[in-house]
């Protein structure tokens, strides 16, 4: 006999529906799964056999073939257990006509424990969103209920295989297989990290404010202990709140990676700080069955790379694509997937390998060649994608001990929000979201040079050896500074301030 159960699978961050066809024919007792299953799908056979037996059903001693269609797309994940089990029950005639009749209106997801209870699985949210489009009712494990509530699809959450069958046979009430609405736990308490904790470092704070307002990437260069990580960790606190679409997008990514915690929808911008020994694949995503990497987990949030120069050269080079396009495309022989990866990069590094270059109190013990080699690990094309660079200097005791608090994150955020508002109006109807992502054409349109700026830019080009490409970046950053001030046009003082954030362009810094 033949049965057909609908389930889902993931490609990139989108779900699509998969139909599980189960055929039971006389012959040697076997269970084979075809249709490009990954290793974890193939392993589901053993779980399904045990779960069916332990739920009080018979496992047919016949030749069972399970086909996952469309057969040409690779399927991975553990959520195929439940649809396969349900298909086997239907195909072996253990479900009544009533129950079988309900199957076409369901989309079934769930991993089975050996005793037949349902276990949570990854990627439920994107598959639910696909399910919603099909107009079906989803069956999901009870532990994934929060994702169900996000999706606004209709869904049921049976605890066990037995419970699900009882419901399909109309022997149990819908209330037994549906968890009533779970109130969202209050969002993780607003981060307690505040900019007012950081003493001194006015220039760096200003640079981060500009970065938050215009979506620019930042490189912090400073002696150890000058507060690079401290500043970076406080950065998400001055970013504008997530919109619903943005939140849904990142929740989907976290759902695929099985990283959703207790909150139903991620409402805080992610802050990812991978260690510098991270592999290229973990950073960018990939693997034989592709998974999102850290850059995608930082989507709509912050990617903080401490000890930037210690990352492997290849890891740094792979960052170029997401920094440029806001997404990562992973090509494998069999498939190509893209993950969104539009994040703000905050990189931090020491000025030299020993960390003391420019320290008035401790001499630097590095040779000029070592310093050069250290700096040259950050390639030009990568630096080109970083609009703001700041040198941090040691904090003086008087600063550290000052009683008056600096500005709070909330005060800074207010200015950032105003600047973002201006940008939203400016870019209405285009794909651009912030000044940092302006195209060459938009730069021409929105960043006219103020009168008298020619002389300044020419002097800067001569003095600092700025390239034409860096001029574009200067204009973008100047636009953001003007937006922070709420002025319509870029003024020369804005351009002049930008020069402060380009110390690496200066000639002769390395020697």
């Amino acid at each position, binding site marked *: 006999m033949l049965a057909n159960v609908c389930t889902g699978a993931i490609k990139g961050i989108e779900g699509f529906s998969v139909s599980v066809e189960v055929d039971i024919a006389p012959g040697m007792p076997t269970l084979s799964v075809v249709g490009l299953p990954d290793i974890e799908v193939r392993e589901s056979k053993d779980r399904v056999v045990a779960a069916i037996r332990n739920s009080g059903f018979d496992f047919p001693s016949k030749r069972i073939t399970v086909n996952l269609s469309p057969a040409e797309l690779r399927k991975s994940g553990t959520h195929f257990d439940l649809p396969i089990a349900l298909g086997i029950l239907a195909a072996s005639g253990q479900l009544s006509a009533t129950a079988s009749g309900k199957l076409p209106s369901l989309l079934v997801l769930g991993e089975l424990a050996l005793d037949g209870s349902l276990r949570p699985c990854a990627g439920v949210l994107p598959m639910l969103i696909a399910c919603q489009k099909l107009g079906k009712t989803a069956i999901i494990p009870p532990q994934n209920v929060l994702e169900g509530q996000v999706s606004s699809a209709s869904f049921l959450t049976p605890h066990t295989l037995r419970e699900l069958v009882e419901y399909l046979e109309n022997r149990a009430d819908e209330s037994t297989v549906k968890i009533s609405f779970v109130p969202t736990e209050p969002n993780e308490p607003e981060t307690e990290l505040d900019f007012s904790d950081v003493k001194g470092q*006015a220039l760096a704070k200003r640079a981060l404010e500009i970065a938050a307002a215009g979506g620019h990437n930042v490189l912090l260069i400073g002696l150890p202990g000058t507060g690079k990580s401290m500043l970076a960790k406080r950065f998400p606190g001055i970013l504008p709140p997530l919109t619903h679409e943005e939140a849904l997008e990142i929740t989907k990514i976290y759902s695929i990676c099985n990283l959703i915690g207790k909150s139903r929808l991620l409402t805080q911008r992610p802050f990812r700080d991978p260690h510098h020994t991270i592999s290229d694949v973990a950073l960018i995503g990939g693997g034989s069955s592709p998974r999102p990497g850290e850059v995608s987990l930082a989507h709509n949030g912050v990617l903080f790379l401490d000890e930037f120069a210690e990352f492997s050269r290849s890891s740094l080079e792979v960052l170029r694509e997401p920094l440029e396009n806001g997404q990562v495309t992973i090509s494998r022989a069999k498939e190509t997937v893209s993950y969104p990866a539009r994040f703000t990069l905050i990189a931090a590094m020491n000025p030299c390998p020993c960390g003391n270059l420019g320290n008035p109190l401790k001499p630097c013990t590095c040779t000029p060649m070592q310093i050069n080699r250290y700096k040259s690990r950050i390639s030009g094309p990568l630096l080109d994608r970083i609009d703001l660079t700041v040198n941090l200097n040691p904090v003086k005791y008087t600063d550290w001990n000052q009683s008056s608090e600096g500005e709070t994150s909330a005060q800074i955020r207010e200015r950032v929000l105003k600047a973002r508002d201006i940008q939203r109006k400016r870019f209405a109807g285009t794909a651009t979201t912030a000044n940092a992502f302006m195209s060459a054409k938009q730069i021409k349109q929105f960043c006219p040079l103020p009168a008298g700026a020619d002389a300044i830019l020419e002097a800067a080009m001569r003095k600092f050896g700025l390239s034409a490409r860096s001029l574009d970046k200067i204009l973008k950053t100047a636009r953001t500074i003007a937006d922070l001030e709420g002025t319509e046009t870029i003024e020369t003082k804005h351009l002049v301030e930008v020069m402060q954030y380009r110390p690496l362009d200066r000639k002769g*810094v390395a*020697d």
Partner: protein
Amino acid sequence: MNTSVSTQERLARIQLNAFLYFRADWLERLIEIFGSAQEILRQDAPTLAREANLNPDTAAKLLQAAHAINPQEEWDKTAALGGHIYLPEDEEYPQSLRNCKEAPLAIYVLGHLPTDGRACVAVVGTRKITPYGRRVTHKLGEELAQCGVTIVSGLARGIDSEAHAAAVRQKKPTVAVIGTGIGRCYPAENRALEKSLLEHAGAVVSELPFNSPPNAFHFPRRNRIIAALSQPVVVVEGETKSGALITAKLALEMGKDVLAVPGPIDSPQSGGPNSLIRQGAGVVTSVADILDYIPQQSRFGLDTRFFEHTDITPDKPLEKLSPRQQQVMQVIGTGSCSLDHVAEELHATVPEVAGLLFELEVQGFLACENGLYSKSKF
């Protein structure tokens, strides 16, 4: 070119010159023993060792090094770059170098060496230059060049490069004695400087075979040539154990005058010059202090205005600056200072200070390194 040396002998000397593990005067002694360089190259190692009373290993290495290079090729490659290889017998070989005890057997020269008797001053120092060293070298270098003195240095990073660059800015000749072979530039970022110093009638000198790599032991060795070509030798900055102090020591052994630029006592880069001063080196506070040591016979044609000792009148150009800019210069003083510090001292916002610093930097009053601003003019 002197014809007293036959072409064959000339090529043999170039071959012999490639043996770097011997002092040049020992090689000359060998030539005396055997009568000519060609004769040495005809020997086998045991004979050479016996006749010259050498360690057999050393003799073998010497012959190996000499035979490893093709002198005709050296000659042709040097000529292709427009250079020459001079022996001490040649007129073009500088007299001051010939007088030196360890005069190289051959030197490779690009460009024009200063004529004998011309005033040459060595300006040497650390590769890890400080803002102070930069502005001192900048000023002294430019004034020496304006005065008509040829600056001799080593084309290394830091003080050396600044000294050459100062002469090039004045479009005056300068001599670079490099620690690599001709045809190779080290550090590579100085390639443009090397090119422009040649354009301004300067010279690049090396005793090493064509295209030799920058091995560490080449550099102290070439320092004796810098010292030999110059009188006096000025040390601007250098740690207490540095190549600049080696140059100073070699210069003293040759009977040259050594001068040092005093510096802050808490700056490691001024440790070398300060200790030289303690040992009796001349103190440099202006270009006139250097010019005093130029031998009488070399003073012809120098601009006499620079010989007058004048007191330093600090910060005269600052009068043209706006009051706010002057305040910034005062905060920075002779040290170095971050933007945050200036902002705090002036009770100003980051954008305002950024503007002030930019103006001062573009006008050349300040230089910025690693986020620290310091005075760039003397």
